[in-house]
C-alpha cells in the first residue's frame, strides 16, 4: 500500500474503529476510560494548534479546562440553562480567558512565556479552590446534570462516549482544515521565523491571539464535557500537573501534526488506567506504574526532545517522505 493511500486510509479506519468501539466493549468502566481519552483529545487538538503549529508554549491549559467545567456547572445547576447553552458558554468563557493569556505571548518567548502561562494556571487553580461561594471550594461542585439535547438526556456510557468523540471528531476536522490552509501556514511560519513571517505580511499578533483563543475554547469545551460526564468537579483536577500532562501529550505527539498528539493523548491517558485495560495485571503493578506517571511523562519528554525532536508527527512525516521517494 502506498503512503498516499495510507494517509487517507489510516484516519478513516481510526474513525470507524472509534465509532464502533461501544459495540465491541461492553464493560462500562472501560468505555468511561475511552471517554476520558476523547476529552483529552479535545484539549490536545487545541494544544497541537497552539504549540505544534504556532509554536507557543502553554503550561496553563488545565485552567481553561477548569474554566469550562465550572462555567458549565454554574450554567446548568445555578442558572438552569439548557445543556447546549451551558456547553457553548463554557467555550466562550474559556476563549475569553485565552485572549487574556495571549497578551503575555505577544511580548514573551520560550521559557518566559512558559513561566507566565504556568503562573496563570496556578492562579486559576487557586481561584477554583478559594472562590467557595461560586465554585464550592476545595469540596468541589456536585450534582452537575448529564448532557442533554432538548428532551434527550445522554446518560448511558455509550451515549456519553459517542457525544465526547463526536466533539473530538469535529474538533479534529476543523483543526485539520485550518492547518492545511492559509491560517495553518501562518501559524507554522510564525513558529519557523517570526521575522520571516512579519516580512511576508503575516499578522503575527492576530495569529498568536487566535491560536490561544481557539486552543482555550477547545479546552473549555473539554472541561464542560468532563463536568457533565462525571457530574462532579473539584480544584484537584485542574492543576498545573494536569497542564504538564497535556503539554507532554502535545510534545510527544510532535510539532506540525494533529495525528501525533491525538495518538499521544490516547497512549498517555490509557497509561493511567492500565489495570482496566490489561485484565490480568496485579493491582500493585498498576499502582506502581501510576505512581511513576509523572516520571514517565518527564522521561518521555526528555527522550523526545533529545532523540526525536518533532515527536511522533515528525517521525511519521520522515517515513512517509522516504516512502514516497522509494
Amino acid at each position: 500500500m502506498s503512503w498516499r493511500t495510507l494517509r487517507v486510509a489510516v484516519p478513516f479506519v481510526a474513525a470507524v474503529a472509534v465509532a464502533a468501539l461501544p459495540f465491541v466493549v461492553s464493560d462500562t468502566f472501560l468505555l468511561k476510560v475511552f471517554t476520558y481519552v476523547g476529552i483529552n483529545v479535545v484539549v490536545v487538538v487545541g494544544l497541537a494548534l497552539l504549540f505544534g503549529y504556532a509554536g507557543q508554549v502553554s503550561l496553563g491549559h488545565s485552567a481553561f479546562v477548569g474554566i469550562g467545567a465550572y462555567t458549565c456547572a454554574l450554567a446548568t445547576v445555578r442558572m438552569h440553562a439548557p445543556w447546549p447553552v451551558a456547553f457553548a458558554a463554557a467555550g466562550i468563557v474559556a476563549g475569553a480567558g485565552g485572549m487574556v493569556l495571549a497578551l503575555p505571548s505577544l511580548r514573551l518567548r520560550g521559557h518566559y512565556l512558559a513561566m507566565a502561562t504556568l503562573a496563570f494556571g496556578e492562579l486559576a487553580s487557586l481561584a477554583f479552590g478559594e472562590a467557595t461561594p461560586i465554585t464550592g471550594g476545595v469540596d468541589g461542585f456536585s450534582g452537575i446534570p448529564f448532557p442533554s439535547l432538548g428532551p434527550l438526556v445522554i446518560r448511558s456510557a455509550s451515549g456519553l462516549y459517542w457525544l465526547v468523540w463526536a466533539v473530538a471528531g469535529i474538533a479534529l476536522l476543523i483543526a485539520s482544515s485550518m492547518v492545511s490552509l492559509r491560517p495553518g501556514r501562518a501559524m507554522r511560519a510564525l513558529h519557523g521565523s517570526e521575522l520571516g513571517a512579519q516580512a511576508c505580511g503575516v499578522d503575527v499578533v492576530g495569529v498568536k491571539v487566535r491560536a490561544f483563543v481557539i486552543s482555550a475554547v477547545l479546552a473549555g469545551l473539554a472541561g464542560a464535557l468532563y463536568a457533565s460526564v462525571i457530574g462532579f468537579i473539584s480544584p484537584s483536577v485542574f492543576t498545573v500537573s494536569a497542564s504538564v500532562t497535556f503539554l507532554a501529550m502535545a510534545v510527544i505527539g510532535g510539532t506540525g501534526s494533529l495525528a501525533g498528539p491525538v495518538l499521544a493523548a490516547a497512549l498517555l491517558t490509557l497509561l493511567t488506567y492500565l489495570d482496566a485495560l490489561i485484565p490480568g495485571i496485579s493491582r500493585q503493578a498498576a499502582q506502581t506504574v501510576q505512581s511513576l506517571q509523572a516520571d514517565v511523562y518527564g522521561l518521555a519528554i526528555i527522550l523526545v526532545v533529545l532523540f526525536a525532536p518533532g515527536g511522533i508527527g515528525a517521525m511519521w512525516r520522515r517515513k512517509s517522505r522516504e516512502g514516497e521517494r522509494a
Partner: protein
Amino acid sequence: MSLLSVSNVTKRFGGLTAVDDVSFEVHTGTIKALIGPNGAGKSTLFNVITGFERMDTGSVVFGGSEIAQAKPRQVVRSGMARTFQNTQLFDSMTARENVMVGSQARQATGFAASAFRLPSARAEERVASDDAGRLLRMIGIHDWADTLASDLPAGIRRLVEIARALATQPKLLLLDEPAAGLNNTETHELVDTLYRVRDSGITVLVVEHDMGLVMEVSDEIVVLDRGRKIAEGPPRLIQKDPVVIAAYLGEEAVEDD
C-alpha cells in the same frame, strides 16, 4: 519617477548613531545598491525602511505615502518586500510552502473560512500554490519546490527567500546581501534573477558586499560609512570616488591589524 524617498533618516542605539541623517531616492524600474564597510548602517537602514526598527527622526515616503511609522505588515501590504542577511525561511516547510506564505498578505482566508473549507478558501489555496510554482520556475529553482527548507543548500535558501518576497507582489524589492554565501555559478544566476525581476517591472534596492556584482547590476549606488552617506552616483563614478576609496581602504587597514 521616485518610488522611494528616504529623507534625513537618523537612527540611534543608545549613544551610537547607526544611521546619521541619510537621504536618497530610488527611481522606479532601476536597481539601486547600498554599499559601505561593515558597520556602516546598511542593515539598520533596511530595517528602518521596512518597519522592523523605528527611526528617531526623518521620513520615508513610498509610492507617495509616508511609511515612517508603519509596521512591517503594513509596509509589505503597501508593496515593499525584503529578504534578510541571515535567511529567515520557515525550516519545517517546503520551498513551495515558504513561497506560499508570501501570498498571505493578499489573501483573505481566515480561521473561520478555513475551518469549513469554504470554496473561496480552496480557490485561494490553488492560486497561492500556482503563484509559488510560477515564481520558483522564474527563479530557476523549481526542482527544489518540494524539499524542506531545512534541507536546502545555502544558495538555494537565498533564492527561495527572494521568491517568497516576490510572492507578496511588491513594487520594490529590498535584498540584504543576497550574494553572501553563494558560489560563482550561483552568483551569476542571482545576477540573471535580478535582471529578470527588474524587467518584470519591480524596482530593486540591494545591500551587497560583492563589489563585482554591485558594479555589474546597479544603475546607481549609495555609499554609507559610519552611518553617513558619503557618496551617491552611477557605478563608474563611485569606483573612482576618492572618498569611497578612502573609506574602504581605511577599513582594510584596520582589518589587517
